[in-house]
């Protein structure tokens, strides 16, 4: 019934509600905010990867003309006695205390009314350190003598982290384990065993609007204006740090110039809050592009995957060992390790599975969520592995996948039964678009053609809550209050379409109030493609609540049921003038059963699954290793489409982002120092870099999603990388096992395959 769209608001490619503001330069971003008396902060950062702070000399900076004040951890301690924050671990200090743990860690801040002055003065600060041994590689971190944190500090609220409290001499921030069936037996009885290791390098989000936050003290507490994807979390965490009730912290979020998982939890918010409290003036910190490299990255990873396979190509057992390079602070890494970790065996029906997934501390920039929450790293490995198995067994990669995929009603590795996951449909649509069953023209000469497919899936993070309020004014106009952040994904428009559908009005007539924790109710965060499902459901229910109350009002004022008297007249009948409101509210939290600690088994791991498949055609120049992707097909299962044009843009935007991570992006480091920390040296895809692409959604429905919909922001990323690597293998018979796929890596692999390896650089 959900799917019936009587009013045609859902399923319509309405132009984005805010398109006019954005096209005229009037859209609000924190970037634009300037408050009276505001000071600008410039961060002085650690220049070493790991060390004890011997001294910080701020005297020259403080004496610099125009400097208002220089702040270090000692000043912060006066307003925030225990200044450690983080969503899973309380491990990150507002400014470095005693030790620095990565290059670029904030050590001090210069405040000035002129940002140029603050920047000049920050360069005058001198810090001295006693360097400590450092560790950078995630696998080495398991056994390294270099230990990043003296003691682990999990946030007290999570039962599954309790056993880590107070642990010393370890870099393991979380270990997640899953056991299903009898893997040892499966391997003992297998016809074939395959084992491969895949790696990904650290990359980063680089939203065009870098991190920016402003804090001001008010009569009642603090207001923080921030480019954040998680206003409710910021409020709760800042209140916790200050020992205040939530209602003294107000967090306001306008539009974001992109987020992609970077602007989650606490980034600059605790720092600007502390600074504003110390100097009792508004403080703004706006990072540069370069500083984003010191703030958050996407996990580098190593994945060892081993499969038992029967001679007819059925996977009977799989062992997965994944190491996630979390950098110096845990951020949300432990949750990625676990909540994405449990999909490591891939969308395959395998009876015997083990997963060991480790979140590691290293002396690098902290890593967090980036468009896929760890899934693209996993798909990279299991879909490359899938093709290698198929190739070794001389099976068609599509036939091999068809034989093994999880189908509706199968149990996933957690034991959770698959439901509303269009894995099969996505796989079939990718192969149909690729004309997979037809012969493929291969070239002779030095440029070889090849093609590949891949498919990945993701579980929505659970359990999480969204709350929404729909306010119908006395003239019948509707306003939605919700804390979902529109960072470009189109949530304002989608939510307006849902309200409009329920209330039988035009989506364009719905006004959206942006996140303001004094006004808009709680939402867990805008992350992991959770919002359209969770907030979408809350919004739908709130609108239905308003609608039911309007029906009550009609009854109360004696209007017969089914009459289409305008809403405004109902209010006039009751209040004798244009007055009053109808407030519809709802909260939504899906059911969830936490996994068993030992085995990772649960009957209800997630409220919904996301599926993404890709197909790639490539030309590989065997003389240079240069790869040209000549076609990229992207197919997602996103449930029903609330706004088809926005869905298509989300799928293609996600694919292009992952394309960058596949072909060109990597953070280069040397002894913990980032050597390409700029937009000039770290190249994200420009319009000339991207391949011809097709993006589409399969016909599907999420039975309990709002009007059958579910999340769409990440699905386009899942399968891009392995589809391209598989196509390269198809073209030239070499396997690239590490992202990004550089021409050098391809050329080296070709030379090695020809028995003429290049010497190491």
């Amino acid at each position, binding site marked *: 019934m959900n799917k019936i769209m009587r009013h045609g608001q859902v399923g319509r490619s309405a132009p984005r509600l805010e398109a006019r503001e954005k096209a005229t330069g009037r859209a609000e971003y924190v970037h634009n905010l300037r408050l009276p008396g505001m000071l600008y902060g410039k961060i002085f950062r650690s220049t070493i990867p790991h060390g004890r702070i011997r001294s910080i000399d701020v005297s020259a900076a403080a004496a610099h003309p125009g400097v208002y004040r220089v702040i270090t951890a000692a000043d912060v301690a006066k307003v925030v006695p225990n200044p450690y924050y983080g969503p899973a671990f309380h491990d990150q200090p507002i400014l470095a205390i005693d030790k620095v743990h990565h290059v670029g860690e904030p050590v001090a801040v210069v405040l000035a009314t002129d940002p140029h002055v603050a920047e000049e003065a920050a360069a005058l600060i001198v810090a001295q350190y006693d360097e400590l041994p450092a560790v950078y590689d995630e696998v080495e971190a398991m056994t390294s003598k270099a230990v990043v944190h003296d003691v682990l500090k999990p946030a007290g609220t999570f039962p599954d982290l309790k056993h880590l409290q107070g642990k010393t001499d370890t870099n393991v921030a979380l270990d997640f384990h899953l056991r299903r069936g009898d893997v040892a037996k499966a391997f003992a009885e297998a016809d074939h065993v395959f084992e491969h290791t895949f790696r990904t390098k650290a990359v980063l989000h680089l939203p065009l609007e870098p991190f920016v936050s402003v804090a001001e003290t008010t009569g009642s507490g603090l207001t923080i204006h921030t480019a954040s994807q998680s206003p409710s979390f910021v409020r709760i965490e800042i209140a916790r740090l200050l020992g205040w009730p939530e209602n003294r912290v107000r967090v306001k979020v306008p539009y974001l110039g992109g987020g992609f998982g970077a602007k989650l939890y606490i980034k600059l918010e605790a720092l600007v809050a502390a600074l504003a409290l110390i100097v009792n003036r508004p403080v703004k910190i706006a990072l540069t592009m370069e500083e984003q490299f010191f703030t958050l990255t996407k996990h580098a990873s190593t994945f060892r995957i081993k499969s038992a396979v029967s001679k007819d190509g059925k996977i009977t057992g799989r062992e997965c060992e994944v190491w996630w390079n979390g950098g110096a602070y845990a951020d949300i890494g432990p949750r990625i390790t676990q909540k994405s970790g449990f999909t490591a065996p891939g969308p395959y029906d395998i009876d015997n599975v083990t997963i060991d997934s480790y979140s590691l501390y290293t002396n690098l920039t902290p890593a967090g969520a980036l468009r896929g929450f760890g899934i693209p790293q996993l798909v990279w490995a299991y879909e490359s592995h899938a093709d290698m198995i198929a190739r070794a067994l001389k099976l068609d990669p599509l036939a091999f996948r068809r034989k093994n995929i999880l189908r509706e009603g199968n149990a996933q590795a957690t034991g959770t039964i698959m439901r509303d996951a269009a894995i099969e449909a996505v796989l079939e649509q990718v192969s149909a678009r690729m004309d997979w069953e037809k012969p493929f023209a291969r070239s002779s000469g030095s440029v070889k053609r090849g093609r590949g497919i891949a498919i990945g899936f993701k579980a929505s993070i659970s359990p999480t809550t969204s709350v929404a309020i729909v306010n119908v004014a006395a003239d019948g106009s509707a306003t939605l209050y919700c804390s979902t952040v529109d960072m470009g994904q189109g949530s304002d428009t989608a939510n307006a379409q849902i309200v409009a559908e329920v209330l039988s009005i035009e989506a364009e007539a719905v006004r959206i109030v942006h996140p303001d924790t004094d006004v808009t109710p709680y939402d867990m965060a805008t992350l992991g493609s959770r919002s359209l499902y969770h907030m979408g459901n809350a919004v739908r229910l709130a609108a239905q609540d308003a609608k039911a109350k309007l029906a009550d009002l009609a009854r109360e004022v004696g209007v017969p049921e089914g009459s289409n008297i305008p809403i405004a007249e109902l209010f006039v009948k009751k209040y004798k003038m244009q007055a009053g409101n109808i407030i519809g509210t709802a909260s939504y939290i899906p059911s969830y059963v936490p996994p068993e600690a030992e085995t990772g088994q649960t009957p209800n791991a997630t409220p919904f699954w996301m599926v993404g498949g890709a197909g790639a055609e490539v030309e590989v120049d065997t003389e240079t290793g240069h790869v040209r992707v000549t076609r990229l097909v992207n197919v997602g299962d996103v449930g029903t489409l609330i706004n088809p044009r926005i869905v298509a*843009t989300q799928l293609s935007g996600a694919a292009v982002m992952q394309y960058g991570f596949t072909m060109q992006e990597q953070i280069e480091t040397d002894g913990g120092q980032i050597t390409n920390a700029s937009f000039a040296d770290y190249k994200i895809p420009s319009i000339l870099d991207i391949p011809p692409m097709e993006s589409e959604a399969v016909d599907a429905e999420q039975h309990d999603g709002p009007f059958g919909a579910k999340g769409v922001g990440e699905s386009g990323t899942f399968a891009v990388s392995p589809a391209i690597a598989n196509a390269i293998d198809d073209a030239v018979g070499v396997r690239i096992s590490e992202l990004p796929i550089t021409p050098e890596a391809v050329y080296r692999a070709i030379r090695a395959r020809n028995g003429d390896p290049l010497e190491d650089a």
Partner: protein
Amino acid sequence: MAAVAMTVNGKAVTGDVDPRTLLVQFVREHLRLTGTHVGCDTSQCGACLVHVDGKAIKSCTVFAWQLEGANVTTIEGIADPSGKLHPMQEAFRDNHGLQCGYCTPGMIMSAIDMVNRKGNDLDDHTIRQELDGNICRCTGYHNIVKAVAAGAKAMKGSSAPAQAAE
């Protein structure tokens, strides 16, 4: 401090600025025309693109004082004063050529400049070549290309000047 006078969106403006003030800072901070954005600050992204004497320029690459007497148009200066959008703005809206919107003002200013130089019938290849200096992290560019092509066509039939308010 240096005195500077120029025309911005058809209005004469003056300022007394620190010599290191970039055009983008002058426009954003002194004139509070905040539609011109700063992304990279190092002339890679194009978010700060404006027109100076009819030519596209990344406003993070010039000092305000260098533009004494110049005629500057920003994203705020291209729509009709009545509120009717410029055809290129309309095309970005209708073709979903934007997501977070941070790159959008620069993209639109770049697209109008492209039409001024290359005419109203722009093929895919030309649009892509010409937009190479504008980075978008969100959209995957496809709808931007469609928007530019549609906007270019619409500019032919429209009374909107290719270069507004000069």
